[in-house]
């Protein structure tokens, strides 16, 4: 077992990103799809904090602060949209969003 380096953290964050992507592609419940997106954002946060720590700069951590705030704002809007759709269609499924086709 070796002392964790930057690479270790990046591998974790990369795998987390891929897990999120898997969720976005495979899951069909809108809420779970959106949770997977949050996972992808968190992967980016982890990479930023790790870079910030190992490069000895605080820039990266400031960026994470901004990303968390932006993500919170986005979550609010996204959930409001999901609620609006559910009221209209009684569904929270990706497949049911198919009225717009040519």
């Amino acid at each position: 077992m070796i002392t964790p380096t930057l690479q270790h953290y990046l591998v974790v964050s990369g795998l987390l990103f891929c897990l999120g992507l898997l969720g976005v592609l495979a899951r069909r419940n809108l809420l779970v799809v959106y949770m997977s997106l949050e996972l992808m954002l968190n992967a980016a946060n982890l990479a930023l904090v790790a870079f910030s720590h190992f490069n000895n700069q605080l820039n990266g951590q400031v960026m994470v602060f901004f990303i968390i705030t932006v993500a919170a704002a986005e979550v609010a809007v996204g959930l409001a949209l999901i609620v609006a759709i559910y009221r209209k269609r009684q569904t929270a499924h990706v497949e049911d969003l198919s009225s717009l086709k040519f």
Partner: protein
Amino acid sequence: MNYMELLGALAPEAIVVLTALVALAVDLLVLRQAPQNARQVVAVSITAVGILAAIIALSVAAPSPPWMDGLLINHSTTAFLKQTLLVLALVAGILSIQSRFTQHTGEYVTLLLLSTVGMMLLVSSDNLLLMFVALELTSLPLYVLTAFNKESPSSSEASLKYFLIGSLSAACLLFGISLLYGLSGGITWTQLATTLRAGSEPIVYLALILTLIGFAFKVAAAPFHLWAPDVYQGAPTPVAAFIASGSKIASFYMFARIFMAALPGTAGSAAWSGATPGWVPLVAALAVVSMILGNVAAIAQRSVKRLLAYSAIGHAGYALLAILSNTEQGMGSLLYYVVTYAVTAMGAFAVVNVIERDVQAPNGESLTDFAGLSRRSPLLSLCLLVFVLSLAGIPPLAGFFGKFYIFIATAQSGTSQGLIWLVMLAIGTSAISLYYYLQILKQVYVVESVGQPTPVQLRPAESACIVAMACTVLILGCAPNWLINRFSPNSTEVRRAGVITKPSTTLELAAEIHPRITAPLGTATGLVQKRPQFETTTANAQ
């Protein structure tokens, strides 16, 4: 830096934010019980005053002082782009008067203006963090605006798709940004440009691919275009028009800036023989797919808004050519192209808006609703003719010169004309696009309308906007030098991160063939010497 300095440098943006707040407050506090039409007129009037003030503030604004390096860039090109964005926002506001998609006029105008602020900041941003925040400020109001029509189920569905795909692109972009930051140790364009080089680390390419995917979603380049047709069709038409015009300008400018100014060391080459890895071949792949898919899929469309969406994907392909040329000349041609495209698309959507209100079909307009329009409203048909022919790239309209400049810039950028194959492909797909554009015109001018032709109801403000935009397209087509000259002096500013410009002999050749068109491009790069006979003629005149 302190608050006062910041306010001084960002006065136009501050004015727009203030206007948004005033419009919201007036609508919610004073005009709650007023009739819908009055509220719309008041909100749009407040918007117009604010936007006018911001445009004036932009025209007198000084270039950014040195303390802002790495945060913001203000120069005459960004000022011009911001003014264009403001005008487009105003038109989107005017188009919404009398449309029945919402009762919440104050919120509509506020979100429209705040999205415009996001675009203005995006145009100016000089580091990764500000770029990300500005991009979010641009997108978040657009998601909400897309869902504004609560009567129509397709509006909220389009919005949710836009939102999910937008968030996915933001996540990809963020991961790319975090890698770029980690590899370079900095977040400003200058820091990125001085540290990142191709070929050293495979992870650099990963960062490039993720950043590119993020931007490809934003500009709706195939194969990341899936949201665009649904959003254009489902969103209220004024909103769709703003997404198709304003957000295109801002995203494409940022797309070009980040790759040209911040990542020049990782460009690579897309030449037919001897391509090297980097972002240029990736952009070339996107451009090829977009041009083919956008133009072919547009043929099958029955809704004009969807048709415009697919044509927008094709146009994104042409604009990507300008980015991958990776020269100052490419930047100038890109800006000319996206500005003229934005005006044209806004105009086309404005006409669609009128027709849609006229038809009042539950599923929106379709191509056949345009049948016999020339009998019902000759003025509207004439404007639509100008817009559609400009989109198709017919001289002497602005769309033709946009494509022309891009093709020249692309052809000249590669060493020994390695990019000619892309230009050939672009010309081929333009020919295909002619087919579906003529389909629209056939409906308007050839096909008879069903039943007695009734005149189309047009409001004065709306028709003034449409005619003004048609005239702009015509004037920019007849005198393209005025606009392209605006973008040339600052091209060096755009590329100040230190890039070697490739010398080109074909540029001089093109100048010989057609001095009027290529001269401004030549002077932009400083490669073409002042023509000697020009000086002799002036001497003779004296």
